[in-house]
């Protein structure tokens, strides 16, 4: 089992779409996949046709002191995911914070209990505004991706956000090489953080938005799109990169 935490450097960076798409891409290469939504916006399930009326999820389970894996769903294609569920965000987050403070690796322990296959990937979608006491949760994962957009807001936020953990990379999302500013920022980020940026950026592709409109990931909705190709490349890169990191550790 390999665990990967994804977190946007600022709000609306497209982290949830990347998590869903990457999950689908890893699943397409034959890996068992489990996606966990820790973001109170509860959007992850929408990429897998989870109806609005469905209230079950991780937060309701935890608040009710039930095992959260009871709220796991499987998409039509076979991607497993646990939505955040409908719960009071403030209450849920403070619960999570308390739990993490007392036992930083609680989620990893829970996952270990599930006895997932060795080649399984667990992707955890974290909210961008992560309170400090939730950080250890990300630090317990094998690897972290910080999702950024090649725009000034993201770039400025990067300067404030502090250093990247050792087992972490920046991932550029929504890259549009047609726009000079984005191209420049893309090159600037690559130069500033040489070796710490995933070599493939995810392009800004209308297919991603259309996919959500169809309540699908782009991998299923537009298999020929560049975004699908980027996500597949990212999946290969992760398999090679994180695979090594785990073996070395």
């Amino acid at each position: 089992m390999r665990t990967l935490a994804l977190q946007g450097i600022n709000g609306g960076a497209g982290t949830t779409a990347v998590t869903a798409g990457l999950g689908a891409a890893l699943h397409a290469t034959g890996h068992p996949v489990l996606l966990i939504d820790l973001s109170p916006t509860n959007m992850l399930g929408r990429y897998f046709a989870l109806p609005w009326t469905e209230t079950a999820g991780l937060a309701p389970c935890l608040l009710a002191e039930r095992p959260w894996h009871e709220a796991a769903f499987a998409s039509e294609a076979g991607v497993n995911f646990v939505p955040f569920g409908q719960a009071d965000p403030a209450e849920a987050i403070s619960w999570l914070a308390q739990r993490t403070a007392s036992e930083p690796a609680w989620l990893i322990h829970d996952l270990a209990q599930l006895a997932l296959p060795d080649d399984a990937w667990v992707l955890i979608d974290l909210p961008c505004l992560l309170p400090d006491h939730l950080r250890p949760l990300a630090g317990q994962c094998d690897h972290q991706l910080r999702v950024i957009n090649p725009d000034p807001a993201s770039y400025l936020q990067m300067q404030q956000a502090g250093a990247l953990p050792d087992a972490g990379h920046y991932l550029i999302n929504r890259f549009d090489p047609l726009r000079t500013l984005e191209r420049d920022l893309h090159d600037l980020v690559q130069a500033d953080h040489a070796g710490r940026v995933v070599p493939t950026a995810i392009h800004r592709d209308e297919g991603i938005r259309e996919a959500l409109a169809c309540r699908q990931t782009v991998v299923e909705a537009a298999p020929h799109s560049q975004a699908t190709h980027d996500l597949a490349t990212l999946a290969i890169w992760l398999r090679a990169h994180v695979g090594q990191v785990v073996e070395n550790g």
Partner: protein
Amino acid sequence: MADQRSLGNRLLGLFIVLPEGPDALKRRLLAYFPHIDFQHLNLLDLLRIPLQLLWLILVIPPGQRPPPPGQRLRAGLRRGLGGSLRRGWQGLRAGLARRLSLSGFFEHLELDKVSEKMLQRPLWRHRLSRYLTIGLAAAVIVMCITTPFTLLSQALFVVVMWIAALWIRRIPGHLATMVLVALSVTASSRYLWWRFNFTLNWDDLLDLTLGLGLLAAEVYAWLVLLLGYIQTAWPLQREAARLPDNPDDWPTVDIYIPTYNEPLGVVRPTIYAAQGIDWPRDKINIYLLDDGKRDAFRDFAEEVGVHYMTRTDNSHAKAGNLNHAMGKTGGEFIAIFDCDHIPTRSFLQNSVGWFLKDSKLALIQTPHHFFSPDPFERNLGNFGKVPNENELFYGLIQDGNDTWDATFFCGSCAIIRRAPLEQIGGIAVETVTEDAHTSLRLHRLGYRSAYLRLPQAAGLATESLSAHVGQRIRWARGMAQIFRIDNPLLGKGLSLGQRLCYSNAMLHFLYGIPRLVFLTAPLAFLLLHSYIIYASAISLLLYVMPHIIHASITNSRNQGKYRHSFWAEVYETALAWYIARPTTVALFAPHKGSFNVTAKGGLVEKEHFDWSISKPYLVLVMLNFIALFAGGGRLFAGPEDEIQTVIINMLWTVYNLTMLGAAMAVAAEARQVRVSHRVGINFPVVLHLENGHLLQGESLDYSEGGLGLKLPAEGLLERGQRLSISLKRGFREFVFPVEVVSTRGDHAGVRFDDLSPAQEKDLVQATFGRADAWLSWGEDREPDRPLRGFLEMASTGMMGYVRLFHHLPPLFDPLVRRLGWLWDFILWLMPRNPVTVR
């Protein structure tokens, strides 16, 4: 259900038994006689039906019998005479190999490992044991060469050597190559020894004169064969050397791009790509050296930010241009690119490392790679399939030279260390091949050279046949000049290996006259009845066949990746006439002759037959045909004891005619419509549609004006659609506006809109300038086999005659028509393979 009865039975069933009703007969007839209309038989069908029956019974091999009508044919089977014969031959060979189980025997012994181990024995480190072994081997070879044999013992000797060669050929490794070389040298030397001792007719002046002429040509061929073995039996295959980690320790480099009369469109991509070479910005300077003194070039250089340089006179052409620039610049190293050789970004980083490792290294040469077909390839239509003339040189010969530290400078795609170059007084100006002469001088001073067989620059091949021939004439003349004024066999400073390698490079270009001698030699007997080889046909065969066969087995093993068997003859034949005169003149008067610049980047507007170029060959063809008729006459009317000699000479004539046919096929200039060339080059492309959708595509070919793309599905693009595409170079991505100009299935052609100079630069750097642009070149080509090489050559020869007919003046129209009719008639008569009938 497969029909288990024999073919004969089934054919019989055609006429006698009709258990399945009358339709069955009709179906079978249609299946087995697809070309005959049984409703309207005509008289000639009386000939076609028996022919077809014979074909069905005798030729279609068992095991691949036609299935009964109605059953599906396996794809790819039964495609005519050639296919069947080939299958029969392959079956026979496979059967023989199984029975003799040669391969199994060798796999068991693992001879390659054994032989490599033998080479590593400490025994060879002692000088004495080495010399003793070499002396012993030489004695044995001399004995093998000079012992007179009876015909029977010679026949035995030949068979033993041949079988040995066929076995050894299967063993990989250097030792086996060396043994093959030894066998070939023995066979060829023995032939020559026999020719000198037993085949000259000293009693007849004509016989003797012509015979000595042929013998001289053969001695030349033998010499070049031997030197070729020395040069190429053990190529060095040097790899790139690492640079220091800190770029501050890297040396400064000047890049010279000399130009004279080439259009700006040819030069621009080279400059752009040179600007993309990965090297610290403050340590690289690019100089456009314009001997044409053109304002457009000056403006362009200023606009893109490279140095521009002219001089007051144009003395010594390119060499003078480079020397002038050398006096005005100061980089530690000088990289030289012809103005149409586009470098990849990795050029310096891959090459310069060796200079830092070896302070006596003065020159690194890399291959000249051509992404457009040369006139031979274009006119023969074999671009990318058969290795071109160039590839043997850059694939093998230079690499072999490197073993002997004799790699020479080829004028472009090379780096020279400034200090040694200044020490020899700059680029040599005495000959028209200043490049080879320059490196010869460097070697004489004890400097070393290196060859790195990584294609890291690519350019246009010459456009028209006449320009190509002109270029080869220049090389030939220049090499002959060096041979005269600065002979590598004489003078100080060179090792024996260097002397031999340089000599071979120069001797090679003297092939003109010997080749013409071989093309006309059989005429001496057939037309003049002169015995130039005064020997019986059978003994000639017993001596000459091992010479030819061993040379071709050995060369096919050594060179097969870079030149297919028999193609050297084609290339030499096509150029022999033109090279013969200038090389001879240069040998006697090395200072005569002018310099001609190779024209590139033009168009061959109309398909035409270059009569002026092929004229001498037409004469040779006619002479050979007359000789063939004369030979026919001799067969019937001549004395009986000459028949074998006549046949051998006629076969030789047919071989020569094939070769001449191939040379003429080259002369039929195919039309070349594109201004910029389509270059097969694969890389991922992102398509940005106007509705915000992005698609992943792949480029198939590139040209300055556009791209051929492969799309993930059909029907994604429409003609006339506008979109943007982006290409990656390293981490960076570049965008170009394009218009779709053609679509077919999942392929589309796009044309670039007007690109700004900056975009053009990005485009060149993201395509031609990619580090991996040319690395996989030729990888998917089929390996050489002597027999296949011969068939390739023979079919090219046929093509030559077909084209000759095609382009004959109107006067010959009736003849052409009749011959065409005859050909169609023969095809009509020929049997067909059975087909499927439902």
